[in-house]
């Protein structure tokens, strides 16, 4: 579809806003609907849209499969690492109260770190699923 001028220009305009919206959903999760799952899917949708227009090989040059496959465990590792931080700082596993001096702040940052991990894993997983299915027939 990369020969269609309107699609190409339109999608080019759309992509940065999709990423921005993903980040908005990610960071606004404290105050409204949102969080790592939704943001991760939106971010992956950006990659998928790019791949639909310019083809999967082009998308794999921008976001290589090796990176995507490592994002999946890396995100979960961020989550598990946050839990272990709680252990290291003298609390129970996944204890956010002890992360900072103020327990409420600790909760905020703990959730922030976990959601960041969720974002990495979910966007990686969604992109990986797309790549795997899209590449199969070639």
């Amino acid at each position, binding site marked *: 579809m990369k020969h269609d001028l309107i699609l190409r220009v339109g999608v080019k305009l759309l992509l940065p806003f999709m990423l921005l919206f993903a980040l908005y959903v990610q960071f606004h999760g404290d105050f409204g609907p949102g969080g790592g799952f939704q943001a991760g899917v939106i971010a992956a949708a950006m990659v998928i849209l790019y791949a639909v227009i310019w083809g999967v090989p082009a998308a794999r040059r921008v976001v290589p499969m090796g990176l995507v496959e490592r994002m999946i465990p890396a995100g979960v590792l961020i989550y598990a690492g946050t839990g272990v931080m709680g252990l290291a700082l003298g609390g*129970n*596993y996944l204890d956010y109260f002890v992360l900072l001096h103020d327990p409420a702040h600790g909760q905020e940052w703990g959730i922030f770190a976990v959601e960041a991990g969720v974002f990495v894993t979910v966007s990686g997983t969604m992109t990986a699923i797309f790549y795997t299915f899209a590449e199969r027939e070639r």
Partner: protein
Amino acid sequence: MTAHLPALQVVVPLVAALLCALLRRSALAWGLTLAASWATAAMAALLLLRVLAEGTISYHIGSWEPPWGIEYRIDVLNGLVLLLVAAVGAAIAPYARRSVAAEIAEEKQVWFYTMYLLCLTGLLGIVITGDAFNVFVFMEISSLATYVLIALGRDRRALLSAYQYLIMGTIGATFYVIGIGFLYTMTGTLNIADMAARIGEVQSTRTVLAGTAFLTVGICLKLALFPLHVWLPNAYAYAPSVATAFLAATATKVAIYLLIRIYFSIFGAAFAFEALPITEVFVVLSLAAILGASTVAAFQRNVKRMLAYSSVGQIGYITLGIGLASQLGLTGGIVHIVNHALMKGALFLAMGAVAYRIGSVRLDDMAGIGRRMPLTMASFVVAGLSLIGSPGTVGFVSKWYLALAALERGWWWLVAAILLGSVIALVYIGRVVEAAYFRAPAAAAATATEAPLSLLVPTWVLTAACVWFGIDTELTVGIAARAAAFLLGAGP
């Protein structure tokens, strides 16, 4: 750090799985698997010792007080199951390297170890958690990993088996969630201990009864109780040898543990077995499994498939013990969870060694293998005798307790059925022994040599355990009796 053992029990294999996926080196992945399996086994042993000495352990994830937060709760029963799962994992880990290298393509080995560790994580999580919904999450972690493990088998039918198990397993897990949803709407809690405390007032409502039905069917799908077992034989027959041995020894046992937990810890023996006809249902279905599935096993030509059908039959013995719901019956059932895991683990590992050498576990190809691989087949014979239930092995111990429990109720016919089940086991194990020792060697078996040490040692460790715990029953029966007393509300 000992205070955090309950959390580390699940976190260590989880992190090891993530590192495997991140590092992508199969030798390194095996090393991580070995280290993580042994560490979890050590932690499970420490936890069980602490439970035996000090009583129930409660660990609050994230320092949120139960029933609001997720609680990890370890008592005698799940301490024992935890140690069983971790110990089997530890025994199989050294075996994995050569067997996996022979059966799975180089680039997929990392994923095998990742999924193996995730499966271990999920199974340990189901056992250790005290939160009913958390059980579902861990159940799906272990199940999804299991589907991948099965699909990694060499035969193309492995894909079909994995697909069928995926459909049935998902239905089972979803039924479990529906059941928990009903209980949650009636009690307003997901913590198992809290649920048990609150369920009294609403116990006989239609919602709770419907929830019980959903939970029973869902979990029985997972544990392969007789008419719901159709996913199991193909899944075990075509999965890689290491996966089969691990799953046969642990996955169904964990589901059985969950069933015991729900019946006895949430509903209580009085409600589940006196107000509802669960005893009748379980005794009938268990008998059908013991006699029916074992008979089907006797007609199989692929030994892994034969052992898989035999698993369905052996699970019948465990559910029989649960159905009898007496001190003796429950002791027998819980002991058989451990014993069956040991002997099926040993049998499948022996078959894995045969598959490693001759590339097949079909009876025709195995003819005469007993003389070429004497140590492997000797292990098969000893574990097979245990499966039959000959005295001096673990199989005898559990059947003894089940027979006593049946006599306690005056059910002579049940004792006869248990003995008949042993006779059928004698037939199918006998077929393998006949082929392996008394037939002229087949082409594949004629040139085979004894399996390497890294395969033999784990096989013999489990085989030796079959004999050891058949003679010294202090550990298994002692703890199982305590767990049974605890579940029936009599013990500490």
